[in-house]
């Protein structure tokens, strides 16, 4: 009785064919709505968690607020100060008063006039927070005004802003904080701004080139061109910053033409993109470094109850210096970074062309020299080949790194192998990042400094000042994670931050870099490059920032977006959606929920609908296949 089986099979095929026919139009329709507007789509692996600029932690969030807003002074092609919210500025003879002229006729994106009062209000809010000792959300923007020594701001007239400092400092021009619209933000209680409860929901009002109109936190944020943009015509009508969980997918999307810019690509993907048609792979110098850090805690003899370093040798600069000869930085760049980086030297990266000064006598990779230096410093080998410290104990160093930086594990393996012939055993293991933060705290930060060495990294600001703080005695318990202490260094730091003569300041920074290099609380391993890629078939005139060795986007300020031009206007297809014309008043598209027919909106009801529809179709298919079994009670 074989007929029933084949008949049922045929029926099944027919049912599936019917289902397929029903679904096919949905699949055949082009997935992307053809746009008459030109959208710049950039991908990154970082998340934009909030549009409140004070909540900014990662580069993508900084990028978001420099799109939304102007800084008082923007950054130009080589990170030099250029007009932003302020069109020009002068410094008084004694250097302690800066007078800024606001851009004439400047308007917020909602049409209201933008004046010095907005700048005054913004800076005053930040100064108030410092005075009240309240941190503004994540606290990354809090330090810029105090670092510049700003004491007060006034707005004598709508076009003038006067900033007073307690010492002459050019850092006033490097305050990386956005100017916010007073008429929007003054309605928000200060506590909500400071706690981050106020997320600055779209549509955002700003004077920057693009304002956020839609955001799905952790997914993507969409910005529309500022109708009142004061600069020259912007090439893109919209900008979308998308978060990718997997950089492999991001690279595929770039190849596919689904995004125009990809930030943060792995070296092997970078290599595969070189030479691809319409794609440029760009290697940018990094404003930061990766370091091997030592626990140099020396207070109370270096003794910490229940923690601390495993040997006093770590407090000895001669010991740390000797170890530096057992690190082959070129090898690390070649193996860990696949060649995309520079061997490390001083704590001011070469990115800062004006301030980086190479060390007077750089170390070489020389294991024999390391051994002899250790001997000379009083660290002898015992009979079993183990290196002993001055207390007679064999030296075993713990080495760790955060799980968020997988490449540091590769570095750790190399370092452990290089220290072994010195007679020093290295115990290397990874630590979960959240836990590591606590583990590195000294008693001054309510911790026990449970480590000997670790590998981590820092990212800098346009001015190197922020990278110099980590070695101050006052920062132990705050940002210092090596607990290095040297009054000479503290003196130099104070002098350089008040020095506005560039040549003199460079001389001070030279001494500081040299001091840290020689005494080595850190061995700077390398300056890793930033690997990005972008397409050239929709946008042209991509400009690197800095020009010589930067990347076009995700730099300092919104410079990279100003000059972009369109390659070709996409021809609208007949199925084009009637997108609201971007010219004229800003059409604030609704953000998350509500809003039928505009934007993604809240898709949950739709998703449920799709699920139900598919189930219904499946149910019909099955019913068709099995329905004829009702009749016929055969005896069983």
């Amino acid at each position: 009785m074989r007929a029933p089986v084949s008949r049922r099979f045929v029926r099944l095929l027919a049912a599936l064919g019917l289902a397929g026919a029903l679904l096919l139009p949905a699949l055949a329709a082009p997935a992307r709505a053809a746009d008459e507007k030109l959208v710049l789509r950039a991908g990154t692996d970082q998340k934009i968690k909030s549009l409140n600029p004070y909540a900014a932690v990662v580069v993508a969030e900084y990028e978001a607020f420099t799109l939304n807003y102007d800084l008082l002074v923007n950054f130009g092609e080589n990170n030099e100060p250029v007009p932003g919210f302020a069109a020009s500025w002068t410094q008084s003879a004694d250097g302690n008063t800066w007078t800024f002229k606001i851009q004439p006729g400047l308007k917020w994106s909602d049409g209201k006039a933008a004046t010095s009062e907005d700048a005054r209000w913004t800076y005053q809010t930040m100064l108030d927070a410092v005075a009240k000792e309240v941190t503004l959300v994540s606290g990354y923007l809090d330090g810029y005004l105090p670092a510049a020594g700003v004491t007060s701001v006034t707005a004598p007239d709508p076009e003038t802003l006067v900033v007073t400092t307690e010492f002459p400092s050019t850092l006033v021009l490097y305050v990386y904080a956005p100017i916010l619209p007073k008429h929007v933000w003054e309605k928000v209680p200060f506590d909500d701004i400071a706690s981050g409860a106020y997320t600055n929901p779209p549509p955002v009002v700003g004077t920057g080139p693009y304002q956020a109109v839609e955001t799905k936190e952790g997914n993507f944020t969409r910005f529309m061109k500022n109708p009142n943009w004061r600069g020259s015509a912007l090439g893109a009508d919209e900008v979308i910053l998308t978060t990718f969980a997997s950089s492999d997918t991001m690279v595929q999307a770039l190849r596919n033409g689904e995004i125009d810019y990809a930030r943060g690509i792995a070296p092997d993907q970078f290599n595969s993109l070189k030479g691809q048609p319409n794609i440029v792979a760009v290697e940018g110098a990094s404003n930061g470094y990766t370091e091997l850090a030592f626990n140099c805690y020396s207070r109370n003899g270096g003794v910490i109850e229940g923690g601390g370093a495993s040997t006093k040798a770590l407090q000895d600069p001669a010991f740390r210096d000797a170890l530096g000869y057992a690190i082959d930085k070129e090898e690390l760049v070649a193996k860990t970074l696949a060649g995309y980086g520079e061997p490390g030297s001083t704590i001011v990266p070469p990115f800062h062309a004006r301030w980086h000064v190479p060390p007077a006598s750089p170390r070489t990779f020389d294991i024999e020299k390391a051994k002899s230096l250790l001997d000379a410093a009083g660290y002898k080998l015992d009979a079993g080949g183990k290196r002993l410290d001055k207390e007679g104990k064999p030296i075993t160093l713990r080495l760790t790194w955060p799980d968020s930086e997988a490449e540091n594990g590769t570095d750790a393996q190399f370092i452990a192998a290089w220290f072994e012939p010195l007679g020093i055993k290295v115990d290397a293991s990874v630590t979960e990042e959240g836990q590591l933060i606590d583990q590195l705290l000294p008693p001054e930060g309510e911790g026990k400094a449970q480590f000997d060495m670790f590998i981590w990294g820092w990212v800098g600001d346009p001015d190197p000042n922020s990278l110099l703080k980590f070695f101050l005695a006052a920062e132990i318990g705050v940002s210092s994670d090596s607990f290095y202490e040297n009054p000479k260094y503290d003196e130099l730091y104070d002098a350089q931050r008040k020095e506005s003569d560039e040549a003199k300041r460079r001389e001070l920074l030279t001494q500081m870099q040299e001091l840290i290099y020689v005494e080595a609380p850190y061995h700077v391993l390398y300056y890793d490059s930033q690997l990005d890629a972008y397409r050239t078939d929709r946008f042209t005139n991509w400009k690197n920032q800095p020009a010589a060795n930067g990347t076009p986007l995700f730099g300092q300020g919104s410079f990279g977006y100003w000059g972009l031009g369109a390659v070709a206007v996409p021809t609208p297809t007949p199925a084009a959606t009637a997108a609201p014309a971007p010219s004229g008043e800003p059409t604030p598209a609704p953000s998350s929920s509500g809003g039928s027919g505009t934007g993604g909106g809240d898709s949950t009801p739709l998703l449920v609908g799709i699920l139900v529809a598919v189930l219904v179709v499946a149910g019909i298919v099955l019913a068709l296949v099995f329905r004829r079994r009702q009749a016929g009670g055969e005896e069983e």
Partner: protein
Amino acid sequence: MEPAPRGSPPAHGATVRSRYFLRQVAQAILTVAFIVLVNFVLFRMMPGSPERILLGRNPNVSAEALQQTKERWGLDKPLIPDQFVSYVVATVQGDLGFSFVYRGKPVTQVLAERVGPTLLLFGLGELIAIFVGLAIGAYSGWRRGGPVDYVGNGISLILYSMPYFLIGMGLLVIFATALGWFPTYGMVTPGATYDSVGEHAADILAHLALPLATVAIGLIGQYSILMRASVIETMNDDYITTARAKGLTGGRILRHHALPNAMLPAVTLIAVNLGYVVAGAITAEKVFNWPGLGTLTVEALEARDFPVLQGVFLLLSISVVAANLVADLIYGVLDPRVRT
């Protein structure tokens, strides 16, 4: 196994069944309560202070800032009873608190945005895997040694042992990059505007195709293997031999005698797996940038976002326990042996 004896008095059967039902429900509720308690304590036992992470791992924070942050988020009160009591009271009222990471956003909203996509992707993926997997498995077991057995089972085994990442990237490279049939990432085209619900649905479906294929392909294996083994075992039972001896056709035996009994283990597996649908598939979500609960959980773990973690695990435990409850009950209906 013969059908239930028809001689049992209905009244007695009904009381037994409802007592069984009530017992199972009570157990389920207690389990959820216990899980909730354990989850609360477990997360807060993780090393690493959330207040530092809340401040964006900013090394420049002062002790005052940390204390402020602790107070703001209620982390300075003692764990038990203060924090726990306020947690329980709020949860019972449906207030799951505010996310640490997505500041100012209620946890219920954070979860609501991700539940839909997860159910769509993983739920549909499971259903497809169930139907296709059971069909392949049943036929393979029925015609053991035949071509469908070798080919179907072999392939599904291979695919089952491949990680989602591999399947997903493979499909991506072939169908999205090389052929351009489907988009590469996300659930919708970012920033697209739609004229009609139909267009929006079409956009979602186009984005859904590859991740759905990935999840379904990855899951088929477990059902086909189980079903195959179950059918083979059932085929050896005495009553099947009896049915054959009575002269029933192969197809009839399969559908009316073998399958109903072979389905029993599958029912349990299906119910349990459907309970875990809410957990999402982290690697599949990562590959396709699908905004699901899996990636949310991982991010919340790294960021010590206790409210979101508690919310996710509450959702997950309710889902799993409920699914298990349903499985027990269905099993009780299907197989009267367990009811007493």
